[in-house]
C-alpha cells in the first residue's frame, strides 16, 4: 500500500466552494477544543455567538457595524494584493485615518455641514495614503520588504495617536480619560433607528462597487494584475511599475484609512487609543479569503463581522480576552492554506503489485 499524490489537472467548482466551508468547520472544532481546555462549554459559547450576531435585528445591525471597517481595510489590502504587494499595515493606516478625520473635526475651523464630512474623509485618505505610500516608495525605490515596513509602521501610528490623546489633544473636560473632546454634530455620521449602524456602511458598499468596476473592467485594473503576475512582461509592455507601486500603496492606505474615519465619525464620535480591535490584521484574511475580489471582500467582511460580534459576546459572558478571536482567525488561515494543497492534488491509496513489474 502506498500513497500516490498527483497534481489535479482541473478543479471542480463544487470542490472549490465546499473547501472554505470545510475549513470553517475544522477551525471551529479546533477552537472548541481550546475553549474546553480554557474551561468554557463550546456549544453554549457558539450558540451565544449565533444568537448575539444574527438572532435579532439589533444583533444583525451590530454585525454590519463590525463589517464596515473590515470592508474598508479589506478593500485596501485587496487592492495591493492584486499587484502582489503585501499591505500588512492596514491597522496603522486606520489609525492615521482616524487622526486625520479627527483633526478636521476638531481643529480645522470648518463649520459648514456640507464640507465637514467630505473634508474629514479626504484628510483621512491623505494621511493613511501617505502612511502606506512610505512602504510603497521604499519598495519601489530600494526594494525594501513592504511586509515588515507596513507592520512596523503600525506600531508607530498607534504611538502617535497615543501621544496625542494622552497629550495635546486630550479633552480638558474629559476627567483625564485619554480621549479627545466629542466631535461637533456636523462631524458625526447619522445612525439609523436605535442602533449603532451608521452611514459609513453605505459608503463602504459604494466604494466596493467602484473598486470592483475599476479592478475588473478597466485597463488600469488589468495592468495591476499583469504587473502582479508577471512584472517582467509588464515592464516590456511599457508599464511603469515603480510609480504604480507607490500609487497603489497610496490608494490601499487611503481605503484602509477610511475605516479609521468611519470608526471615529460613526461609532466612537471622538478619537481614543483603542478604536480598533485589530480590523487591519483581519483585513489580510478578508482579502485572502475574498480571492482578491471587491465583491468577495464585502461577503467575507460580513462573515467576520459575525466573528467580531461573537467575540465581544464571549468576552462579556465568559470573560474571554478580546484577542481570543485571533485563535479562530489563525486556525482558519492554517486550514485554508492546507486545503489548497488538497484542492490542487489528488491523493489516492494504491496497492503495490506483488511481483515487481519488468521495466
Amino acid at each position: 500500500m502506498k500513497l500516490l499524490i498527483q497534481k489535479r489537472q482541473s478543479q471542480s467548482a463544487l470542490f472549490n466552494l465546499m473547501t472554505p466551508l470545510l475549513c470553517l468547520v475544522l477551525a471551529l472544532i479546533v477552537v472548541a477544543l481550546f475553549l474546553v481546555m480554557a474551561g468554557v462549554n463550546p456549544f453554549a459559547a457558539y450558540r451565544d455567538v449565533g444568537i448575539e450576531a444574527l438572532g435579532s435585528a439589533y444583533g444583525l445591525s451590530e454585525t454590519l457595524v463590525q463589517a464596515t471597517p473590515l470592508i474598508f481595510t479589506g478593500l485596501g489590502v485587496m487592492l495591493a494584493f492584486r499587484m502582489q504587494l503585501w499591505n500588512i499595515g492596514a491597522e496603522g493606516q486606520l489609525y492615521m485615518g482616524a487622526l486625520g478625520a479627527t483633526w478636521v473635526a476638531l481643529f480645522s475651523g470648518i463649520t459648514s455641514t456640507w464640507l465637514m464630512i467630505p473634508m474629514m474623509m479626504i484628510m483621512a485618505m491623505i494621511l493613511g495614503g501617505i502612511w502606506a505610500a512610505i512602504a510603497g516608495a521604499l519598495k519601489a525605490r530600494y526594494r525594501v520588504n513592504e511586509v515588515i515596513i507596513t507592520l512596523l509602521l503600525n506600531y508607530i501610528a498607534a504611538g502617535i495617536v497615543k501621544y496625542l490623546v494622552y497629550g495635546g489633544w486630550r479633552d480638558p473636560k474629559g476627567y483625564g480619560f485619554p480621549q479627545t473632546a466629542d466631535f461637533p454634530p456636523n462631524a458625526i455620521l447619522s445612525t439609523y433607528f436605535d442602533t449603532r449602524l451608521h452611514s459609513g456602511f453605505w459608503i463602504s458598499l459604494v466604494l466596493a462597487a467602484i473598486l470592483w468596476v475599476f479592478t475588473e473592467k478597466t485597463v488600469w485594473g488589468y495592468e495591476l494584475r499583469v504587473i502582479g503576475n508577471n512584472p517582467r512582461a509588464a515592464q516590456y509592455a511599457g508599464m511603469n511599475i515603480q510609480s504604480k507601486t507607490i500609487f497603489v500603496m497610496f490608494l490601499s492606505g487611503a481605503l484602509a484609512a477610511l475605516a479609521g474615519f468611519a470608526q471615529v465619525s460613526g461609532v466612537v464620535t471622538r478619537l481614543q487609543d483603542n478604536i480598533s480591535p485589530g480590523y487591519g490584521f483581519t483585513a489580510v484574511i478578508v482579502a485572502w479569503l475574498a480571492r482578491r475580489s471587491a465583491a468577495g471582500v464585502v461577503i467575507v467582511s460580513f462573515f467576520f463581522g459575525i466573528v467580531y460580534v461573537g467575540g465581544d459576546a464571549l468576552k462579556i459572558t465568559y470573560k474571554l480576552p478580546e484577542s481570543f478571536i485571533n485563535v479562530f482567525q489563525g486556525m482558519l488561515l492554517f486550514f485554508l492554506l492546507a486545503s489548497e494543497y488538497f484542492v490542487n492534488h489528488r491523493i489516492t491509496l494504491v496497492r503495490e503489485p506483488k511481483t515487481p513489474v519488468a521495466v
Partner: protein
Amino acid sequence: MIDLIETIFDTTIRAGTPILFGTLGAIICERSGVINLGVEGLMLIGALAGFAVTSMTGSFTAGVLAAIFFTMIAGMLHALITVYLKGNQIVSGLALAMLGVGVSALFGRSFVGKGLDGLSRIEIPLLSKIPIFGAMFRQDILVYLSVILVVLIALFFSRTRWGLYLRTVGENPGAADTSGIPVTRYRFWAVALGAGISGIGGAYMSLAYTPFWVENMTAGRGWIAVSLVIFSMWSAPRALFGAYLFGGINAAQLQLQAHGTSVSPYLLTMLPYLFTIGVLIWSTRRLEKGASNEPASLGLPYDREDRK
C-alpha cells in the same frame, strides 16, 4: 557617571537578548529557505509557557524547556503548511502570529497579575569586576546561553556537514535533492528548531526581563527580530550586534524616561520601531549593492515535480 554607563550597558544586553533569541531562531529557519513571520506569536507562546510552568513548578529549567517545547509544536504547524503542503509562507507566518497572540491571551488569563522572582544573575569572577564591560559578566544564565548559541550556530553553518547541507537546501533545493539531501526533512526541522529558539526569547521576557505575564507583552519584538535577520545578513554574530544595537536604543530611551525629559514617553517608545525601519532600509540597500547573502530560495516552496 560610570554607574550610569554601566546601567545603560546592562539594560542594553537585557533588552537585546529576547530580540537576539528571536533573530537567531529566524536565521536558522530562513537559512533553510522558509520565511517565518510568526516570530511575534512564537515569542508570546514562549513567554506564557515559560512563565506558567515556572510559576507552577518553581523550576526555571522546566519553564524554559516548556517554552521550547510549545513553540516547537507551533513551529511544526508552520513547517507542515509551508514545507509539506507548499502553502504561502507569508500568510502562514501571519496565521502563526495571530494564533500565538490569541492562544497566549486565552491561556494566560489566570496568570495575569502574578509575579515571579526572576532569574538570578550569575557573576563570573574577575571578569565581572571590569569597569563598564563587567556588566556583560553579571547576567543570568539565558544571556550566557544566547551568546553561546551565537557561537554554536556560526560554527554549525561554517564547520559542520549538516550546516552546509542546510545552507544548500536554502540556496538550491533542487541540487540538494539531486545529491540525496532530504530537502523537506531538513526544512521541517530547521523551522521547528528555529521556532524553539525564538521561543526562548519569549521566555526570557517573562522570566528575566520583566518577570510577570501580561497579554501581548512582547509588543512587536518578534517583528523587530524578523527585520534584524535582514540586517544580520543571515549570520549569527551580526545578529548579536543588531540585537544589542536595538537594546542600546531601548536602554537610552528608558534612561531618558527615568530622568524625566520633556519628551513624551509615547514618542520615546516609538524609537525602536523607527530605528528598525532605518536599519532595514540601510541593510536592504547594502544587499542590493551586491553584498547579498540571502538564501537564494527564500520564500519558495520546493516541489520535486516542478524541478527544472
